[in-house]
């Protein structure tokens, strides 16, 4: 791919061109190792592995078996919470325009401490062009990896490890992005990579894949023809023009030939019979927008058609689209979705990937990290450090439009244990733990986003209070507030930024942000106090419930469950009450329950919840 805005712009002042200070983009560089880089025609993706040290609240219970019965007045704590330093392995991926390569490399070199790494894995069309620069700046040997291999490895990784990675795009539905559940077996699938040209790859297993076909009509064609026809030089501008155009002025439709539909073949009048068919026969000038739109349709339809022909030949129903041509642009995703739907008569759906821009970098990184065997672990997205799906849609508010295309980040934390589906689930692929989907349900989304924003003050206070002895706690808590508020704002405008939006993901995001600033669990002390109290009454309550009739018992259990959840969630009404009346007890909570008709139960993260259900009336 031809490079635009060459690196020959020389030294580039980072401060003027980026919106975040560089140490917030290239994080945790001191211990960084295993570098990888994917250099495309205009964007570079850098990957590295590093470790992050942060505080974790660990629970250790004391041995109570010796005690025969727990006395109410027993003041000893039942378990201990200690805060320990833990090291998490984290993968960092950063995306930026090629123009900034030199400055970014300089910055990395300055902050890199670890000298173990000798090699950087590289892929992408631009890898050989920038080889010398990278070797000079980073003093690392560039080890080129095959682009397709990296792409597939990256694709396998995201499909397996990131929930809701793949989605179906439905332009006119309530929720434009319909995220797909992770399937335990992702193979086989078809990957259509649309870069300058198109590669169609059939992936049968982790190591078995084959390029079964391709097309020379791809992103480069759109850009090249677009530049020639509209005199527009930037790819994103072309897309913007396309989103405003009317292709029917330029294309010859079935109705232009038939005066209506071609009924016997089931071809509706609005179908395009000949792209640019009108430009041959009429004398008039065509607008840039109309030509760009026609071009987009022409190319998307063509790619979709070929994809379908290959999918049919190889009997594949999972078709993923990646490559810079897409970049989350709604019009492009829509035309491709429409095309696939049309040519397979609705049997196959086009699937897109949230992190499609990073596939090459992830794959190159995995190639270099083979010794560590990253695939044996489970990885989770760190919402605090990831920028989320950014669309280049013109409807984006100006703040975000300036931001997108500059620097984008993705962070993946290695989880302690490998995640597996609960064996008791009847059908793991269709199981959805969340009862509300906030990407679809706008009303609930507004409610919950507001809820979490409103509760922020309280959380900040708690965070500070939980680390009273540490002086910079206030500063860190403030940073946490900024960060989480920014996340909530992003989600308000782009609910789909991190996949499916649920109350659970909002809580996870908050937790990640808190961890960012070393607040492992601001509620730990309160939880401990309350759990201690609850546990003391536990045996008594169990005994009294057992004495009830079967029916009574069920009612009591359910009411207790609901009230306990209301209590714990800090739903707005309850937290308001709690703020004003700290002695608000369980009985009162149960009474409040009558009025809450629309409340729905959801998942809870706290391990000791169940014990709290049996709080007595004190």
């Amino acid at each position, binding site marked *: 791919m031809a490079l635009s805005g060459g690196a020959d712009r020389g030294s580039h002042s980072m401060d003027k061109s980026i919106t975040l200070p560089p140490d917030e983009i290239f994080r945790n560089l001191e211990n960084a190792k295993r570098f990888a880089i994917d250099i495309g025609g205009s964007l570079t993706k850098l990957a590295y592995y590093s470790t992050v040290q942060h505080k974790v609240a660990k629970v250790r219970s004391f041995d109570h078996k010796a005690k025969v019965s727990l006395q109410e007045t027993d003041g000893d704590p039942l378990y201990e919470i200690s805060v320990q330093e833990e090291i998490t392995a984290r993968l960092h991926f950063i995306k930026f325009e090629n123009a900034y390569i030199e400055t970014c490399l300089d910055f990395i070199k300055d902050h890199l401490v670890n000298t173990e790494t000798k090699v950087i894995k590289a892929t992408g069309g631009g890898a050989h062009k920038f080889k010398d620069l990278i070797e000079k700046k980073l003093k690392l040997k560039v080890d080129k990896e095959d682009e397709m291999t990296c792409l597939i490895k990256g694709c396998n990784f995201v499909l397996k490890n990131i929930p809701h990675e793949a989605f179906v795009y439905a332009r006119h539905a309530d929720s434009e992005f319909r995220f797909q559940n992770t399937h335990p077996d992702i193979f086989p699938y078809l990957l259509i990579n649309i870069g*300058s*040209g198109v590669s169609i790859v059939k992936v049968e297993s982790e190591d078995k894949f084959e390029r079964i076909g391709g097309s020379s009509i791809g992103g480069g064609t759109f850009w*090249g023809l677009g530049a020639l026809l509209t005199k527009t030089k930037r790819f994103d501008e072309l897309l913007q023009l396309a989103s405003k155009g009317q292709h029917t002025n330029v294309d010859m439709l079935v109705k232009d*030939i038939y005066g209506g539909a071609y009924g016997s073949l089931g071809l509706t009048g609005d179908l395009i019979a000949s792209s640019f068919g009108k430009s*041959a026969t009429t004398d008039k000038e065509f607008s840039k927008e109309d030509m760009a739109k026609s071009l987009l349709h022409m190319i998307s339809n063509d790619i979709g058609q070929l994809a379908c022909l290959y999918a049919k030949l190889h009997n594949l129903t999972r078709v993923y689209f990646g490559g810079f041509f897409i970049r989350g642009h709604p019009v492009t995703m829509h035309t491709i979705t429409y095309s696939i739907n049309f040519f397979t008569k609705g049997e196959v759906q086009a699937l897109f990937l949230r992190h499609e821009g990073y596939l090459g970098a992830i794959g190159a990184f995995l190639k270099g990290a083979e010794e560590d065997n990253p695939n044996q672990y489970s990885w989770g997205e760190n919402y605090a450090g990831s920028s989320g799906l950014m669309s280049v849609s013109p409807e984006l508010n100006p703040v975000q439009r300036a931001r997108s295309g500059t620097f984008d980040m993705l962070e993946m934390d290695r989880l302690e244990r490998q995640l597996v589906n609960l064996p008791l689930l009847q059908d793991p692929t269709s199981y959805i733990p969340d009862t509300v989907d906030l990407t679809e349900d706008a009303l609930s989304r507004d409610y919950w986003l507001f809820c979490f924003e409103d509760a922020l003050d309280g959380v900040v206070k708690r965070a500070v209070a939980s680390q009273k002895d540490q002086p910079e706690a206030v500063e860190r808590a403030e940073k946490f507030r900024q960060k989480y508020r920014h996340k909530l704002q992003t989600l308000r405008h782009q609910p789909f930024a991190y996949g499916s939006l649920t109350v659970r993901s909002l809580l996870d995001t908050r937790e990640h942000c808190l961890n960012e600033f070393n607040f492992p669990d601001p509620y730990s002390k309160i939880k401990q106090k309350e759990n201690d109290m609850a546990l003391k009454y536990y045996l008594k309550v169990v005994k009294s419930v057992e004495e009830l009739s079967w029916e009574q018992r069920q009612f009591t259990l359910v009411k207790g469950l609901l009230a306990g959840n209301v209590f714990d969630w800090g739903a707005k009404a309850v937290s308001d009450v709690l703020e004003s009346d700290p002695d608000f007890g369980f009985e009162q909570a149960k009474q409040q329950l009558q009025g809450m008709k629309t409340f729905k139960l959801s998942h809870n993260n706290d391990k000791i919840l169940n014990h709290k259900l049996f709080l007595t009336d004190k």
Partner: protein
Amino acid sequence: MKLKCSKKPAFPWFGMDIGGTLVKLVYFEPKDITAEEEQEEVENLKSIRRYLTSNTAYGKTGVRDVHLELRNLTICGRTGNLHFIRFPTAGMHRFIQMGRDKHFSSLHTTLCATGGGAYKFENDFRTMADLELLKLDELDCLIQGLLYIDSVGFNGHPECYYFENPSDTQNCIKRSCCLDNLFPMLLVNIGSGVSVLAVYSKDNYKRVTGTSLGGGTFLGLCCLLTGCETFEEALEMASKGDSTNVDKLVKDIYGGDYQRFGLQGSAVASSFGHMMSKEKRDSISKEDLARATLVTITNNIGSIARMCAVNEKIERVVFVGNFLRINTVSTKLLAYAMDFWSKGQLRALFLEHEGYFGAVGAFLELLKSSEDA
């Protein structure tokens, strides 16, 4: 192929195919008119015959393809010449007016028409010239027309041809062949748009798919990119251009072959892929652009045709349509593409009468229908 005609329809005998860009007209000129018949002949019928057969150009844009004329054809008991005429669909209204001026409606002949325009212009024929069209399905006509012409041959020569050694574009030889064992065949009709048909027998076929990147796209893009105005101009420019200046090749990205996937360095990786660079844009010529457009559209059609052939398990791919008229660049490229990508399993076949089969099919329908007008 024997034609069953129970009753001979009245002259003139026409078949019309009104497409998106071109109208194709087939006219039968009887050469066995007896003196008696001539005396009875009405004036306007005579003038129509004279007008059509003594000219090779009509108005500014009508053309009679003399080289395609089928001589001494016996059909329905009459002997004569079959003429092939075309003019742009944009001139349709003028044509209808001519029909009115020549009092065509008084001739009591059935006007058989196919193509989208048969539906689109039906009313205009009626209101402007008091003519009733017998509308026919374009794909039916295409197939019937093709089979007929193949069966009667091209003035003693075969209608069908292919290219021997298609990979050698300079020296590949055009060879004629017979379409015996015609079926099954994949028929790719490249007009303004493209239709791909799988034909199993004379009456059994299905439209597999189509694409909107066809002849109309080539001409349309060419006009926009180079300022040319006609198909002939566009082809002329394309024959002189070099598309490798415009397209990005595999070697431009990989420095050579992409061996892992068996892609030669000379293969096109991205059509028009160099055009995002201003430098490159300034260094190429209009001819290069025309060539690149032609190559891009042709290769794409080839690709789709090949995939369809593989999916439908058909080895014979026949390309027709006026996109291929005087277009040896495309025909050779298609022959090469079919051969190369299928490693010799598929063969591209072409027919001399390219885009006229629909009109011929309509003409045949006229002879089959025994209605008294």
